[in-house]
């Protein structure tokens, strides 16, 4: 389904700010699986997601999705296969356009946009029905600008938009990180419902250990641009937040050990 093979990306190459954000990352994802990606800040988890989405060109490696080699495809072309929800609730919707207009664009994701009416009558009633499933009372506010809604409501709508036409792959980039706990719970419940109902193949980046153990059937832990652990099947089902935190702690301790050594070397030679 999704094959990521040996992809690498270095930002600011050749400058003092050089960062190896991805170091030859490879993994395969079978159809219908729900992969959680966790990692510390700067570990490359969001970069990995953006590499699949096509936000930047890769230095090395290839990405194949549903039999297409999409490595060279620009972002908007990949949108035909991929639905996305961003970390920032303001990123996924056009604030000065109405709920109905925003959703109508999702109904044409990856399709040709011509001179047909954006919101024909049939679509309008479908909009109402599907927005009602969010249970947020938004079905009566279809002509309000999205900018007037809360972050949680916007994120729920973005989720609905990303999955309006069943995507081959759904990308969720810490999509509850910017929400208050109550909205975050609501959006997570909705996420789970939609993924289960449509059997969506999903990549989800998260900061929350709770989400990481509760959701998904596979978990990847990243560190410094590489995959550190890949937990699947029964082991994933058994994993508890404490186990994951323990593994983070191990990483931290190893790196702390490195830091004084590096400092010593710097003092001795620089």
């Amino acid at each position, binding site marked *: 389904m999704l094959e990521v093979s040996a992809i690498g990306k270095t930002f600011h190459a050749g400058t003092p700010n050089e960062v190896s954000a991805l170091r030859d990352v490879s993994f395969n994802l079978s159809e219908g699986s729900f992969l959680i990606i966790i990692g510390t800040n700067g570990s490359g988890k969001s970069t990995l997601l953006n590499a699949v989405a096509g936000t930047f060109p890769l230095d090395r490696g290839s990405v194949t999705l549903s039999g297409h080699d999409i490595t060279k495809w620009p972002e*908007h072309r990949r949108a035909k296969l991929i639905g996305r929800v961003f970390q920032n609730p303001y990123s*996924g919707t*056009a604030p000065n*356009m109405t709920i109905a207009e*925003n959703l109508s664009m999702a109904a044409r994701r990856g399709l040709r*946009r*011509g*001179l047909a*009416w954006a919101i024909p009558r049939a679509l309008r009633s479908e909009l109402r029905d599907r927005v009602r499933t969010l249970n947020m009372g938004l079905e009566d506010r279809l002509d309000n600008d999205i900018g007037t809604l809360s972050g949680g409501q916007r994120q729920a709508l973005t989720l609905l938009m*990303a999955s309006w036409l069943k995507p081959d792959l759904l990308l969720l980039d810490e999509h509850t990180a910017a929400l208050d706990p109550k909205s975050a719970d609501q959006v997570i419940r909705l996420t789970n419902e939609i993924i289960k109902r449509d059997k969506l193949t999903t990549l989800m980046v998260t900061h929350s250990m709770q989400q990481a153990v509760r959701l998904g059937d596979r978990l990847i832990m990243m560190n410094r641009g590489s995959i550190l652990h890949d937990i699947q099947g029964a082991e994933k089902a058994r994993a508890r937040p404490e186990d994951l935190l323990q593994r983070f702690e191990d990483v931290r301790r190893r790196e702390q050990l490195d830091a004084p050594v590096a400092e010593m070397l710097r003092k001795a030679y620089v």
Partner: protein
Amino acid sequence: MTLLLGASTVGLILALLALGVYLSFRIFNFPDITADGSITLGAAVTASLLVMNWPPALATLAGFFAGALAGAATGLLNAKFRINGLLSGILVMTALYSINLHVMGKSNLPLLEETTLVTQSESFFGMLFGPGDVQVFGWEVDQRDAAALCLAAAMVAGVGMILYLFFRTEFGTAMRAAGDNPQMIRALGGSVDFILIFGLAVSNGLIALSGSLLAQYQGFADVQMGIGMVVWGLASVIIGEALVGSKSTGIVITGAIMGSLLFRLIVAIALRWGLDPNDLKLITAVFVFLALVVPGALTALRSRAGRAR
């Protein structure tokens, strides 16, 4: 009366410029200075073709497409070559100055003897109402003035309507979204580059159309006629927004047309009262500056007052 009629006609013709500026400046948030060159380009192309005895409708259409080409060039520089938007416009505008001179062959091209859309609508008026002056609400109005006003009004109404309908199509909606949140429309499969290039082409096409009609109305095309026009269009859009006080597309389009009309009338009256025409561009620029700054300053003052309480 003739003064008001003339000012209204020019106001309506420049409303097409305002619509073009609205598209680039408000929809895409793109400060597109190409306008200064493309309005002259429209005038130059139409005038040269009219001198070669082309049918006026075709010559006008050619003016529109020439402007669209110029807009597409600016879009291409910005989207494909990643040149700053303002600079892209400046480059194309500068290039257009030479191109316009080449198109016209000299710096001023008179259209005194040629058949234009204006003379055509004048003879159409003559067929409808017979020869001589036309009665409008009891005023005797010169037939040419009345015909030109009706022509301009019809053009603006048509273009405004098409634009309004266009913004409600799939592609038009995507265009508004590309200006509002490019990341979002990209994630939904819209090519922001293509949409921007197309949008700037339409914008400059409308601006060139405005120039083409202006040349036919005033009876000449001049290589200098575009200077400061983008600011003029911007002023019209801002006045329009203040008039209608809404962000909804259809209403803002109507507002821009009304803004252009009102602005031209104010200027005509001010000139009549003895305003030095040389000061016109300075006053326009200061006006746009105030219109951009004052609303924000007012909000800041108000919120400060609110906090003090």
